[in-house]
């Protein structure tokens, strides 16, 4: 489904709010990565010693990802406080998010819930989970 078909004039949000919502989502991705990191950390001990090195490398990668996401979240959050008071239509962009739950959460946080808009239903083409 093309997001533009949903009607671009329906959902409008300030850039500050949009960045803020984005910052929370990146923060959540960082938290999930942190969780994955902790799982790998626990699993390392269950792996035979001769194969442990390759998993330690994976753990470093996930740790780096976690830090990267946390830093990007901090940057986006900081930017949300510094942008001028302007608004933009976000409806079409939300329509391009292929993960329904994410689109629905962002839509709700951007004011879609008050307008009775559910992006989770129409967003993207595929939910694998």
């Amino acid at each position, binding site marked *: 489904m093309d997001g533009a078909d949903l009607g671009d004039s329906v959902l409008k949000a300030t850039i500050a709010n949009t960045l803020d*919502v984005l910052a929370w989502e990146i923060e959540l991705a960082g*938290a999930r990565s*942190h969780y994955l990191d902790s799982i790998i950390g626990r699993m390392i001990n269950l792996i035979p010693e001769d194969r442990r090195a390759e998993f330690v490398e994976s753990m470093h990668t996930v740790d780096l990802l976690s830090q990267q996401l946390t830093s990007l979240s901090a940057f986006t*959050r900081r930017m949300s406080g510094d942008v001028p008071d302007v608004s933009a239509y976000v409806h079409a962009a939300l329509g391009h998010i292929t993960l329904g739950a994410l689109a629905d959460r962002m839509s709700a946080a951007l004011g879609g819930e008050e307008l009775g808009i559910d992006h989770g239903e129409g967003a993207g083409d595929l939910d694998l989970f």
Partner: protein
Amino acid sequence: MTDGHGQRVLVVDNDRTVLELLKIRLEVAGYHAYVTRTGADALDSLRNVRPAAMILDTNVDGDGFALLHAIRHRYADAHFPILMTGRDLKVDDVRHAQADGAQLCMVKPFSGAEAVERIGRLLQLAHDRPAAATPHAGPTVAHI
């Protein structure tokens, strides 16, 4: 970083993203987090389980302060510390939260790691100085 010792933390926030990220962060830190989006669900949870600490947003049901007041009134014997969160918290809001029994306020947006760290500090304080976690204990740790 698993020093939560399985202590229960109740998180009440109407924002699903915030709820999920705090749940993950708290559980990775060793806490047992349970989350709700409404005041009714929070009160329902408190009927069954008493948390070691609570994170409550000012925007829950449009008035988190009312929920804070209801919790402290209904469970006057429960001295678990409450961390109040919210956007654009003003000094008056902090005073209001404090008067109704919150120990600490934190302005949104914040990082999940920051929130977990503050919960840890609140629990440590409640452990070291139980009176500090008592509602109306005075202007101890609340800040913006």
